[in-house]
C-alpha cells in the first residue's frame, strides 16, 4: 500500500475550495492551512501560460521531517502517510526547517501540524476532504501499488511532475501537466 495524490493542473482553477474544506474538516484554526494554492504565470502579454496547483505535504517516502524529528513524533503511518503524533511533539521545529515544501506549521496549541491525507477518512474508505470537495475533480487519491487504481492509471497515461525532485525526498504528491 502506497498512498499518493495526483493534482491535475489542467483542471485546477485555484478556487481554494480544497483549502477551506480542509480547514473545516480538520478544525484547522483560522489563519493556518494544511493545503494551499500556487499560481505561476509565465510569458508576456498576450503569449501567456498559467499553471495553478493545489499543494500540501508531499508525504515523502524519504521524508527529511521523519529523519530529523528527535522524538519520533513525525512518523510513517499505514500506506506511507507521514503523520505527527501531537503528544510526542516538542515543537522544536527541526522538521519545519528540513521540509523543502514548507508544508508544516506550529499549531497555536504548540505542536507541529500539517496535512494527514485525511487519514481518518481514508481509513473509512473515503477520499481526503480536499479531493472530495473539488468542483473540477482535479485531485485523485489512491494506492500506487494497485495498478488499477485511478491514480496508477492517471500516472501511466498522463505527463506528470513532482516538486523539487532534486531534494531526493521521493514525494507522493504528483502534478499532472
Amino acid at each position, binding site marked *: 500500500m502506497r498512498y499518493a495524490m495526483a493534482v491535475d493542473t*489542467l*483542471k485546477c*482553477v*485555484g*478556487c*481554494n*475550495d480544497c*483549502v*477551506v*474544506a480542509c*480547514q*473545516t*474538516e480538520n478544525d484547522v484554526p*483560522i*489563519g493556518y*492551512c494544511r493545503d494551499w494554492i500556487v499560481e505561476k*504565470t509565465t*510569458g*508576456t*502579454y*498576450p503569449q*501567456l*501560460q*498559467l499553471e*495553478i496547483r493545489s499543494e500540501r505535504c508531499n508525504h515523502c517516502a524519504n521524508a527529511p521531517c521523519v529523519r530529523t524529528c528527535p522524538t519520533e513524533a513525525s512518523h510513517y503511518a499505514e500506506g506511507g502517510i507521514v503523520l505527527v503524533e501531537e503528544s510526542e511533539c516538542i515543537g522544536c521545529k527541526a522538521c519545519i526547517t528540513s521540509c523543502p515544501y514548507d508544508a508544516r506549521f506550529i499549531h497555536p496549541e504548540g505542536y507541529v501540524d500539517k496535512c494527514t491525507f485525511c487519514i481518518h477518512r481514508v481509513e*473509512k474508505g*473515503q477520499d481526503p476532504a480536499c479531493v*472530495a*470537495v*473539488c*468542483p*473540477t*475533480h*482535479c485531485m485523485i487519491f489512491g494506492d500506487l501499488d494497485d495498478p488499477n487504481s485511478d491514480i496508477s492509471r492517471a500516472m501511466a497515461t498522463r505527463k506528470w511532475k513532482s516538486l523539487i525532485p532534486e531534494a531526493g525526498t521521493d514525494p507522493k504528491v504528483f502534478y499532472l501537466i
Partner: protein
Amino acid sequence: MSTSMNRRDFIKIAGVGAGSLAFATPLFDFSTGDILAPDTVPGMYAKRTPTYCEICFWKCAGWVHTNEEGKIWKVTGHEDDPHSNGRLCPRGTGGVGMYNDEDRLKTPLIRTEVNGVQTFREASWDEAFTYIADGLKKVAEEHGPECTALFSHGSGGHYFGDLLKAFGSNNITAPSYAQCRGPREVGFFATYGEGVGSPERVDIRDTRCLVLIGSHFGENMHNGPVQEIAQATAKGATIITVDPRFSTVASKSKFWLPIKPATDMALLLAWMHVIINEGLYDKEYVEKYVYGFDELKAHVATNTPEWAYGLTTIKPETIRETAREMANASPRVIIHPGRHVTWYGDDTQRLRAVAMLNALLGSWGRRGGFYNPEKVSFKTYPHPQFPTPKRTWKDAYPGKFKLASLALASGICDATVPATGRDCSFKAWIVNGTNLIHTLPNQANTLKAIQALDLMVVIDTMPMEITGYADVILPECTYLERYDDIRVSAHREPTLALRMPAAEPKYNTKPAWWMAKGLAEKMGLGAFFPWKDIEEKLDWELKQVGSSLEEMKRIGVKKMKRSFDDLYPMENLEDFEFNTNTGKIELYSTAMEDEGYDPLPKYKAHEEPPEGYYRLNYGRAPMHTFSRTANNPNLTDLMDENSVWVNPKVAKEWGLKNDQYLWLENQDGVVSKTPIKVRVTERIRFDSVYMVHGFGHTEKKLTRANGRGASDADLITRVHIDPEMGGTGMRGNFVTFRFEAGKEVSS
C-alpha cells in the same frame, strides 16, 4: 461635529451591543429536528440536516453536519443535487463562517437621536414592527401604498414581497436584473421567445465548443458550469475565451482572444459574417426555424474580419479560425450568454447578437448547446388575492425601457430622488439582503434617494453600508439557522430542495418568514399569511406534489421525472413553434422593431479612456460573493482584500511596484474611499485595469472587512443606460492612479 443637514446620517453600528432582548416564543421545535438522514459515516458526526446554500444564487443543495455537542461543523454538497453534484464551491464550504461571524447583526435596532446625534437603539421585535407598521401606514396615507418598494436579493425576499403586495405595491426588485443579467434575458427573449434563466440552460457537459465572452468561470465560481467545463474539456471540448484579461479560464482555453475592451459587438458581427459567407451555418436548422436570415446576411455584409480587426485588435485569421472551430462543433456549440452583462449600455443588442450566433450554429434546443429545462409545477399555500396597485414603477418612465420584464432596482432608486411632475416618488424602501451602496452604480445618487425617504427598513444578517442609513434594522438569522421556501429549480431534471435550521438562531435573530408574518399581523394584513408557521406551509405545499416536509427533512433533495422527453426539442428538427411574433427564431426581431428599437444589432463605438486613464474592469473571486462575504472569517482567511491588476508596461510608466498601496481616481474626479494594493501582472491589457468586486467596506463594525481593499462601486459614477430595458452599463468608467487619499466625503 455631526451636521443636521441630513435627516439620515450614516450611523456606524459600532457601539450598539449584543442583543439581550430575548423574544419569548421559541421559533423552532427542535424536538422534531431529529428526523434526519442516517449517519453514513459512523462516528464522524452526530447528525446532518439538509440545506441549500445562500452564499450565492446558484443555491446548491447540501448537508449541514453537526457534532455531538450540536455545534455546526461543516457543510458539504448533496449528492443528488444537479446544482452541486455533491460538491460545494469554496463559498458554500466556507458557509459556516457566515454563521460563526461574531460581527453579525444581533438584535433589532431603531434610529434615534441622543443629544442631537443620530444613533441606533436596541429594540424588541414588537417595537420594531410597530415602528415599521406606523411608518408604512403614514406613507400609504400621504402618498399611496405604491410609493413603497422592496429591494431584495435573498431567499427571504419572497415573504417581504408578499407583504408588500398585500400592502398594495408590486414594486419588488432585485439588482440581479438591471445591474446584472437583465439584458441577456431580453436579448434571448427577443430571439427565441424564451430567456436563459438561472441556472443557465447551457449544456456545457456535452458541448464540443464553448465560447466565453467576458465570462470568467473558475473565478466566477458558479458551481454547475465550473464542474461541467472541467468535464467537457476532459472529453476534448474546445474553449474560446474572449477577454482583455488572461483569466483563469483563458489559461485553459485553446483560443484566447485578448480583445480591446468595449468592442465585443464587432467580433460577434464578424463571426456571423464569416459563418454566413463561408456557408458554415446549420442550413437545415436555419431553413426550418429561423426568420430574417436574408436581412441578417445583408446586415453583416460589410462586417468582415478585416473590419473587426481594426476595432477589436483580433487578427482576421484568428476570427476566421475561431468561427470555423465553432462551426465544426455545431450544433454542439455554446456561445455562452454570460451573466453579469450590463457593460456598455448596448447590452441587450450585444446579447441579441450572442443569441443570433447560436441560432446560426443550430445550438438552441440541441444536445451540447442549450437544453430545455423543466421545473416542478409548484403550488404555494393559498392566500387571499392581493389588491391591484394603482401605479407601478413603470409609470415613472413613460415610453422608456419597454422591454423590461422585471422592475429595475436602479429605476426605483432614481424615481426616489425627488423630481417635479412625477406622480409617485418612492417614500419607503424595504431592503432585504442587498447592500445597495455597493450594488447600485452612482453612489451619490443612491444617497440622494435615501435622504428623500420617509422610511427605510433593512433586513440583513450583517451590518453593511446600507444598514447604516436605515431607520429600522431587522437582524435575520443565517441560512443555516432557518427555513426558507422550497427551492424549485429548473434543470435537466426537475428537483426540489429543502433548507431547514441546523441550529437554533444565534442572538436575537429571526428568519424572514417570521418577520414578514409578524409585520403583516401588526399591519392588519395577517390574512395574507394564513399558515400557523412555515412548517405547516411547506408541508402543505410539498404534499401537493407528492412529497412532505417529513420526507424532505430526510432526503433533502427530491428528483422528479420530466413530464415530456423534450430535453433537446430541436435535436432532430422536430416541429416547434417559438413564442415570438413569427413563431420562429427571430434573427430579425419584429418585437424590437415594433417598440422602435433596432431589429438587428449594430456596432456602436464606445468612449475610450483618456490619456493616463485605464478602463475599469471588475469581476469575481472564487471565494467571495459580491460584498456580502467580505467579513466571513473562513473566506477572508482565503482572500482578505482585492488588488488592482496593472500591466507591467503601465506599472513602469507610473513607477508602480507590486504590493504598494494607492488610490484610484475616476474620470469624474471621484477617488476610491480606501487604498488598494497594486498587482503588476502580464495577465491584464495595457489599456485597462481589473479589480475584484466586493471589497473596500467602510462599515467599522465589519472588523475583518473594514478598510480592506477598495470598492469598484465607489468609482462607477458614469452609467450607460440600456434603452431597451434599463440595464445600467457600468464598464464605461476610467481610472488613474493617485498616491494620496481623496478628500473626506461627507455623508
